[in-house]
């Protein structure tokens, strides 16, 4: 799957590429408005990551250009601007998601994963992994074709892990994924243990393999 990263800060782009390249993604990079426009005209992408502050032009105008071409790619805005108005403007102009910097790389990866699957028509909003089947639209989970009832947060966590296969996810990233900025306001995030414990228990009882591993001390990994 091809991704285009439009971001003027090379260090950020490199980190994103480095994190995503392990997961079947082919990443391309554009550092300016003109470079980005040229790439969009020449190639097809599954997903475009767009920074709003670009040398050579406004990111929102670039977004309008992309939408004019009427292609099927998903667009995620990654921006340092995090005001409500900026987000609304971005989403109204046609972006699928809006991620305010600084975010965690697993968060980005999970969102790319969801958007690519939501965008595709041919039943790919069903994710299959061995005995596990996840329906993104109805938000249901089947194990060996038997439904497993998960809470919204457990479902969110499961998708997050699936979107970051074989990666170590820190507790910090999980807390921020579940409760945003508020997560940092408290010292301990015991509620994460609780949610993960419940998720593991429900999956295990339904006969799902032990994919979710605890990396002793600080994080979790979904191993396939």
């Amino acid at each position, binding site marked *: 799957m091809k991704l285009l990263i439009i971001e003027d800060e090379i260090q950020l782009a490199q980190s994103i590429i480095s*994190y995503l390249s392990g997961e079947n993604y082919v990443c391309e990079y554009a550092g300016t408005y003109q470079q980005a426009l040229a790439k969009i005209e020449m190639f097809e992408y599954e997903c475009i990551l767009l920074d709003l502050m670009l040398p050579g032009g406004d990111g929102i105008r670039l977004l309008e250009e992309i939408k004019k071409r009427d292609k099927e790619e998903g667009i995620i805005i990654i921006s340092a601007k995090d*005001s409500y108005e900026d987000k609304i403007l971005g989403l109204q102009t046609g972006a699928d998601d809006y991620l305010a910097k*600084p975010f965690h790389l697993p968060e980005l990866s999970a969102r790319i994963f969801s958007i690519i699957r939501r965008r595709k028509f041919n039943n790919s909003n069903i994710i299959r992994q061995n005995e596990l089947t996840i329906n993104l639209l109805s938000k249901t989970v089947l194990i060996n074709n038997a439904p497993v009832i998960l809470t919204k947060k457990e479902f969110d966590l499961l998708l997050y892990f699936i979107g970051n296969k074989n990666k170590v996810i820190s507790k*910090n990233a999980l807390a921020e994924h579940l409760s945003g900025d508020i997560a940092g306001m408290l010292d301990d995030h015991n509620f994460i243990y*609780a949610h993960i414990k419940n998720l593991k228990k429900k999956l295990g009882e339904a006969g799902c393999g032990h994919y979710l591993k605890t990396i*002793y001390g600080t*994080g979790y990994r979904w191993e396939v």
Partner: protein
Amino acid sequence: MNKLLNKSMRAFVLYAGIVLACSIPAYYAIIDFIWAHELKEHNRIVSATTRQNLQALSLTDKELSETVALWNKLQPETQLQPVAALRPDSTYNIYRKNKYIPAKGWDRFQGLVTYFTINGKVFRLTQEVNMEESHETIIAIAGVAFLFFLILLGGLIFINKRTSEKLWRPFYSSLQKIQAFDLHRQYAIEFEKTGIEEFETLNHHLEKLIAGNIAVYKQQKEFTQNASHELQTPLSIVRFKLDLLHQSKPITDEQSALIDEAHQSLSKVTRINKNLLLLAKIENSQFSGKEAINLSALLEKHISLLDDFLEDKQLQVIKHIAPDVVLSGNKTLTEILLTNLIMNAVRHSQPKDTVTITLKTHLLEISNTGAMPLEEKMLFRRFGTSSPNTTGTGLGLAIVRQICQLHGWQESYRFENGFHLFSIAWA
């Protein structure tokens, strides 16, 4: 405090009073002198007339003594008496009781004693005339002086008010404008043209001073905003690198723990940065949209969002939320305010404590258990209560205050029966 106009007035009135008071003895002395002089003259004329007329009558000695006796009886204020020898004339001024109308009390007389001869005999003529008593004169003069003082005073006040007000009007107008000036609101003051050199100079310098202040203030705010923006990128880079570092293989538990601790501190810096940016934005009036907010519903929604944290600490939440309390304000900011207040209570509670959330028509109150009263002055200040060992940014309550100020709400803190009570009141 004295007003400028009264200050100059007081000196004028004091001066006028002293001058008028001093004029009383001066008037008295002059009037008394003229009066006495005129009466002396009068006495001399009457005496001379009497003498000449008597001498011209050419009476015999017998007729003369009868006439003199009759004279003395009819005219008690003048006495004609034979004496042994001629003496120089003399005058006197005495107070005497009124013999004929006792109710009049003491009368003042100006007298002249002259000596002359008729038919070779020496006579002494005492001529008296009633003169105005000193105290009566003084009272009359003082009365007139006081009356004029009052007229002068009234006139002075009136004229002073009229001219001073006109004169100082530009000054008061400038003063009013400076009073109404608010550095947060960012508009420069325009003073009216006065055409008076001193006021022009004053206004010119005030304008310069204010413009300078606005510029410095703007710079400072822009600095905060720019600094926060500039920090976003390096913060993102550090976070990304840590995320990548976490993926390196093999990774030990120790390394993993180090990364996690770095993440925690980094997320505190990120939040401080975001909060500073938020404060700068509020100060720059970048949150202008106002709408009617159903605070009851918003509050319930927020409490449920924070469920995880409340359960984590096993906090008991007591809610007294009046239904459909509607408040006009910026929704984004109101949400931030609620989050900050509730999380503040959660963070500073011990496990199994009680957090009470009360919402009334004009009041929101959030309380949590506490041991000691906090210092209110420091609470709402930026970094007033921050400490290096907590996850708090030290900005949460400063943001609450800023949001309240923007909306005209009143934030306050008090300690009551072992509870910290934070409340927001609105009209």
